[in-house]
């Protein structure tokens, strides 16, 4: 059975939990005491991921790190129809948003760690970067909606939506509200309606 080394408050681990739920993939989890225990930096976890980060996902004898890579793996191995990771001209765009979700958008995650857990860091600078990332998503989704679309890429949900969703939604933990992002609000309601959707603490089902 696949295994997720998981931390319940991690938006990156949530990407994997959400994707497996949407695909109906059953898996086991091992809770890692990320905070306050810093277990992701323990020798046992560094042996699995020398970067000392979560999530780590084991499947088919592979040990995978990086939430975006794991999303690709899940779509590749568990979505034979190929709708979540299309191989046509949408492929490049999906990859572009995956890179963004693991890159610029992680400023929201960093701001959240400072704001919520007291990690060291320049909160205002991180928030500013987080808002810039949110603005890029808002502008893109706004264009998509003006063109009659809703998803980040193409006419169906892809792993790009799943990669973007968690930290967009957790931005309130970083002190970034959603008042300025109407296109994001419209999009996030569609994500929540996906069959099999699961929430996480801070992303309640009752919205």
């Amino acid at each position, binding site marked *: 059975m696949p295994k997720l080394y998981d931390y*319940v*408050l991690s938006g990156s681990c949530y990407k994997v939990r959400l994707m497996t739920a949407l695909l109906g993939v059953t898996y086991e989890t091992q*809770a890692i*005491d990320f905070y306050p225990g810093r277990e992701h930096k323990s020798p046992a976890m560094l042996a699995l991921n020398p970067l000392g980060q979560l999530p780590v996902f084991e499947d088919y004898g592979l040990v995978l790190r990086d939430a975006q890579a794991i999303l690709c793996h899940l779509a590749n191995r568990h979505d034979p129809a190929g709708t979540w990771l299309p191989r046509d001209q949408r492929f490049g765009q999906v990859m572009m948003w995956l890179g963004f979700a693991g890159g610029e958008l992680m400023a929201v995650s960093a701001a959240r760690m400072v704001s919520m857990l*007291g990690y060291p860091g320049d909160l205002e600078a991180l928030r500013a970067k987080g808002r810039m990332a949110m603005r890029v998503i808002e502008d893109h989704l706004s264009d998509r909606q003006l063109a009659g679309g809703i998803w980040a890429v193409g006419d169906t949900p892809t792993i790009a939506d799943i990669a973007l969703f968690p930290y967009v939604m957790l931005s309130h*933990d970083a*002190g970034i509200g959603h008042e300025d992002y109407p296109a994001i609000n419209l999009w996030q309601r569609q994500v929540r309606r996906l069959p099999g959707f699961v929430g996480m*603490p*801070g992303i309640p089902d*009752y919205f």
Partner: protein
Amino acid sequence: MSLTTDQAALDQWYVLGAVSHFPFGTPVETGLLGEPVTVTRRDDGVTVIGAGRSLPVRTTYNHVWTSFGTPARDIFALPEATEPDRRWLYCGGVRVAASGLRLIENFLDLAHFPYVHTDILGSEEKPEVAKYEVEQRRDVDEIWATKCEFFQPKAAAASDGGQISQYMYRVVSPFNVMLYKTPPTAPNRWDVIALFVQPVDETHSIAHPFMLVIDPTSTDAEIIAFQQMIFLQDKIVLENQRPALLPLQPGRETPTRADLSSVLYRRWLKEKALTFGTEPRTDGVAAGA
């Protein structure tokens, strides 16, 4: 921001974190009651500096406690702390943009379980809060709610099914609260789950959940993850409550019978004339009157 002048708030003991979470030798900046404080852990103990002076320090229950004033009582008694088979878990401080009093009141509330902790601490099919008892124990100056019962689909990390959980709540000071709850693995004893709130300012708090539990099977990571999951489900609600400051003025919020513990808690805060983290009254009644 500056140190509050609310004497009732000043004359209390406050937790600044678990002792083990402070690094040796490196001062840690934090805040209490509107004032910056610096905690330094050394081999020979912990010091806390605030408002230009050394503050009193206790390390009771392996937490760093301090006070700006003169607490009338020592830190509360916790007999369970001497039981050898209990696991001590320090779940780590979480910052919440809310009044510390709102955090305590939310902790006392049973009625939100089915809606905020759906399918974990409560079920939308069984939302009823059964009648429970509340009392102010004047000898120890604590608020107790007893004979609380609630159906819980997943009461704790070690649960493998639903149970009717028995609860007792105990408010030991305005910003420190704990609950006693039947553990899935030892129905004749009580788990202790405490919430120590560090009021940084009137609308920002750091919650320090602390658990003394009987659970021979779950890993530390599983128990801490369960507690953090629950608390983060509360956080989004707490940060969106309005007014942000706890209203003590009659008529500002309307309690129901399920809110008995909250009613007594607010009455007790009024009796203490505590104002820090409360909404300014507009009815001309002074705090403590």
